[in-house]
C-alpha cells in the first residue's frame, strides 16, 4: 500500500471473525431468517411475497434512510410520524381540490419546511433535538387534525394513485412503483452520505461537533439540513401511503417515528452519532418486516410480533454496547 514501515498486528486488534460478525451481524440474522422461513413455509420464498414485503416496507424504509443522517449527525427525530401525517392530509386535500401531481410534490416540500423548523429551533436555542421534536411532533399532529377537522379524507383519484399502487413490469416481474421510489431514494441517500462533502460533514458533526467547528464547518447548518432531509422523507412516505390506501387521515403515521428509530438502531448505526450507514437502516427495516411477515405466514399470534421485535432490538443494542470501544 505504501512504503512506510509496516507494523505487525497490534495486540488490541480483535480476531477478524468476531469483528466481521459484529459488523455484519444484522445481515447474518436476516439470512438465517430467510432460510428459516423458506423451510417453514412454501409461500414465503415467492417473488410475490418478497415484493410484497418490500412494498409494505417502502414508506418506513424511506424515513429510516433519511433519519440515519439525523442520528449520525448526533440528533434524534421524534417528529417523523407527525410530519408524515401533515404531509398525508395536505397531499390528500391538494389532490382533491387542486391537482393530483402537485399533491405528490407538496408532501415532501411540506415535510422539508417542518424539518427545517425543527432544525432551526434545535440550533438557535441549543436544545436537545429529542425534546424539540417531541414537542413539535405534538404541534404537527395538531396541525394535521386541524387541516381535516379531524375527519378522514377519501382520495380516489387515478392520477394520484400511481405512486402508491401502480406496478411496472421489470424483468418479467410486476414491481410496485413505491418499491422503485424507495430503491432510488436509498441509492441517493447512500451516495450523499458516502460520496459527498456534506456526508463527511454529517459524520464529523455527530462524531465531534467541536472538532468540526474548529475545522471551519458550519455545524448548525449541517444539523438543519439533516432534519430537513428527515422531513422530506417523512413527507414522501406520507404521500405514498395516502396514494396507496386512497385515504388521508390525520392520525396517519402515528408510531412510525419509533419504528424508524428502532430500524436505524437495529441496523447498528450508533445512537451516539458519528458512525453508521444507510444500508444498515434498510437492513433494520427489512428485518422488522421479515419478522412481521414470518408471523403472518406461520399463523403465529401477531401479539408476539412487537415482543419479538423488541427483544431483538435489546439484544442488538446490548451486543453493540458490549463491544470494547477503547
Amino acid at each position, binding site marked *: *500500500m*505504501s*512504503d*512506510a*514501515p*509496516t*507494523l505487525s498486528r*497490534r495486540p*488490541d486488534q480483535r480476531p477478524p471473525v468476531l469483528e466481521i460478525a459484529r459488523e455484519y451481524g444484522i445481515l447474518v440474522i436476516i439470512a438465517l431468517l430467510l432460510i428459516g422461513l423458506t423451510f417453514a413455509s412454501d409461500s414465503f420464498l415467492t417473488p410475490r411475497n418478497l415484493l410484497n414485503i418490500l412494498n409494505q416496507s417502502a414508506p418506513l424504509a424511506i424515513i429510516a434512510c433519511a433519519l440515519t443522517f439525523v442520528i449520525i449527525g448526533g440528533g434524534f427525530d421524534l417528529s417523523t410520524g407527525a410530519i408524515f401525517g401533515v404531509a398525508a392530509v395536505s397531499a390528500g386535500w391538494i389532490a382533491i381540490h387542486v391537482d393530483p401531481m402537485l399533491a405528490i410534490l407538496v408532501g415532501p416540500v411540506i415535510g422539508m419546511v417542518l424539518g427545517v423548523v425543527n432544525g432551526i429551533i434545535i440550533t438557535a436555542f441549543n436544545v436537545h433535538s429529542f425534546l424539540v421534536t417531541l414537542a413539535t411532533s405534538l404541534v404537527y399532529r395538531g396541525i394535521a387534525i386541524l387541516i381535516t377537522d379531524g375527519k378522514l379524507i377519501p382520495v380516489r383519484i387515478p392520477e394520484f394513485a400511481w405512486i402508491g399502487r401502480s406496478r411496472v413490469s421489470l424483468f418479467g416481474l410486476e414491481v410496485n412503483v413505491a418499491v422503485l421510489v424507495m430503491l432510488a431514494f436509498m441509492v441517493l441517500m447512500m451516495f450523499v452520505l458516502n*460520496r*459527498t*462533502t*456534506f456526508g*463527511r*460533514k454529517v*459524520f*464529523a458533526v*455527530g*462524531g*465531534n461537533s*467541536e*472538532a*468540526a*467547528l*474548529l*475545522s*471551519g*464547518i*458550519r455545524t448548525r447548518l449541517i444539523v438543519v439540513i439533516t432534519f430537513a432531509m428527515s422531513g422530506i422523507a417523512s413527507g414522501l412516505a406520507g404521500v405514498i401511503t395516502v396514494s396507496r390506501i386512497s385515504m388521508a387521515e390525520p392520525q396517519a403515521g402515528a408510531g412510525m417515528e419509533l419504528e424508524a428509530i428502532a430500524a436505524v438502531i437495529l441496523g447498528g448505526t*450508533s445512537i451516539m*452519532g*458519528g*458512525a453508521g450507514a444507510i444500508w444498515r437502516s434498510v437492513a433494520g427495516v427489512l428485518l422488522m418486516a421479515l419478522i412481521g411477515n414470518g408471523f403472518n405466514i406461520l399463523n403465529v399470534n401477531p401479539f408476539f410480533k412487537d415482543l419479538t421485535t423488541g427483544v431483538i432490538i435489546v439484544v442488538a443494542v446490548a451486543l453493540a454496547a458490549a463491544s470494547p*470501544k*477503547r
Partner: protein
Amino acid sequence: MPGEEIAVRVRGVEKSFGGTRILEDIAVDIGRGEVHALVGENGAGKSSLGKIIGGYYTPDRGRVEVWGSEITRFTPRDALGHGVAMIHQELQLVPALTVLQNVFLGQESNRAGVLTRGDRARFAELEQTCNFGLDPDARVADLRIAERQKVEIMRAIARDARIIIMDEPTSSLTEDEASRLHALIARLKAQGKTVIYVSHFLDHILANCDRVTIMRDGAVVRSADIAGETKRSLVASMLGREADILWPELPPAPGPDAPPVVELRDVSTRAGLSGISLVVRPGEIVGLIGLVGAGRTEVARAVFGADAITAGQMLIDGVVQERLSIREAVEKGIALVPEDRRKQGLVLTQATRPNISLATLGRISRGGILRNRDEIARTRDMIRHFGIVPARVDGRVVSYSGGNQQKVLLAKWAVARPRLLILDEPSRGVDIGARQRIHEFITEMARAGTGVLLISSELEEVINLSHRSYLMSEGRIFAEEPSAGLTVNEALARVFAEQDRHSAGQETRAHE
C-alpha cells in the same frame, strides 16, 4: 493498620486510554497524616493518579496498597471501604437535596430500609469535628461552591475516610475561601487524616503541603519534602525536559519590514485578553511564553475567529477583519491545531482519511462530490510524509498512539497549506520520536513561507523553535524578545517577576 506509616503506596502503575499512555511506571509513597501534593502541568497525569487511588480508574498494570493491603478492585465504593474518599473538581452532590441529605446520602439512618431519625444527631457530632457552620436544612443548590466543598468533605468524614483526595480544590474558590479551606486541611491533618492535594497552584502547595510529588508527561519526576522547594524549583521540574533532544535548524527569519500575515492591534476579548498587539510574518515562527492561564490559548482562539474580538483590530494580510468566523478564518488560510486533540481536534469515530480531509473537503471534491482517488492519494502522501503508523488510509484513529494521532491532526492542516499555522501544545503527550517529527514539521512549514504561532508549556520548545517570542501574563503581553537571546530560566524569572508585580499587595497566585 495503626502503626503503618505509609498510607498509600503506589508501585509500577500504568494507565492508557485508547492507545495514549497517560501514566507510566508510577511509584509514590504517601505517608500517614501528611498533606501530600501532586503537581504538574495540565495533562501531566496528576488527576489520573488521584483517580486511581480514589478507585475511579483501574490501572492497567502495577499495584496500589492502602495501609499495607493491596487494592484489587478499583471502584469508589471499594476505595471507601479502605477509608479513601475523593473530592472532585466537579463536585458530586445532588443539588436538589439538603446539606443533611447529601452528607448521609446512601448512609441514612434506617431500620430495615425505612428512614429513621438520627441523622441530625450524627450531623451535630460531625459538626463538632469540622466546625463548618453549615445549615443542615439548606438546599445544596443554594450554596456557594466553597460551601458545597465543605459538604463533600463532611460526607467523606461521615464515611470514616482517613485518606482524602482533593482534585484541584481551589480552582473555583476565591483567595479568601481558599485560605479557609487550607485552615480546614490543617485541622484534618491535626486529627490524623491524610490528604492528597492535586493542584497546579504552586503558592497553595508551598504554603500548605508537607510533601510534593511532581509529575510530567505521565511520569513521576521526583518526590520531595516541601521545605526544600521553591516555586522556581517546582516549575523547573514540571516543565524541564531531557537534554537529548535535537532541535532542528530554523529557516532564516524574515526581515522586520516584511508585511505581516496576521496582526493584532490592541485586541481584547471576553475570554480575558486585554490590549494584545502582535505580528506574525510569512516564514516566521513566533512563540507565546507564559504559564497556564496567561492567555496563550485565548490569543490562538481570537486569531482563529473562535472568540469574538471586543476591542481593537485584527488584520489578515493588511486587511482589517470584522467579526471573523472560524469558517472565514479557515478560508483565509488560518489553521489551528488545538491543545486537546481528542476533544477538539480529531473525530475519533472516523478513520485517518476523513480526519485528514476534514478542513479541506472543498479541495478534493467537485460540486460537493468527493473525488476518492485524489483523496486517497493525498492521504497516502501525508501518511508517508509524517510517518504515520499504522500506515493505513482507513486506519482507526481512535486506537492510534498519541504521537500518531497528533500527526494525523497536523496532516489535516498541512494539506490546507495555511498562511498562518497556530499550534497549541503540539507535542503534549507524544513520544520522543513523534516530537522530533513535529518539530521538523514546524520548521518545514516556516521554510515554505507559512507564519507559525507556537504555544507550548515546554519553554525549551518555544525558545528553541521560534524566531521571536512574546511573554505573557494575566491576559497581556508584557515583553517581546528574539528567542535566540532567551533561556528557560530567564524567561521563567521574567514571567514570575511580572506576576508578582501585577499582584503586588495581594496574596500571590501562580495562575489566574
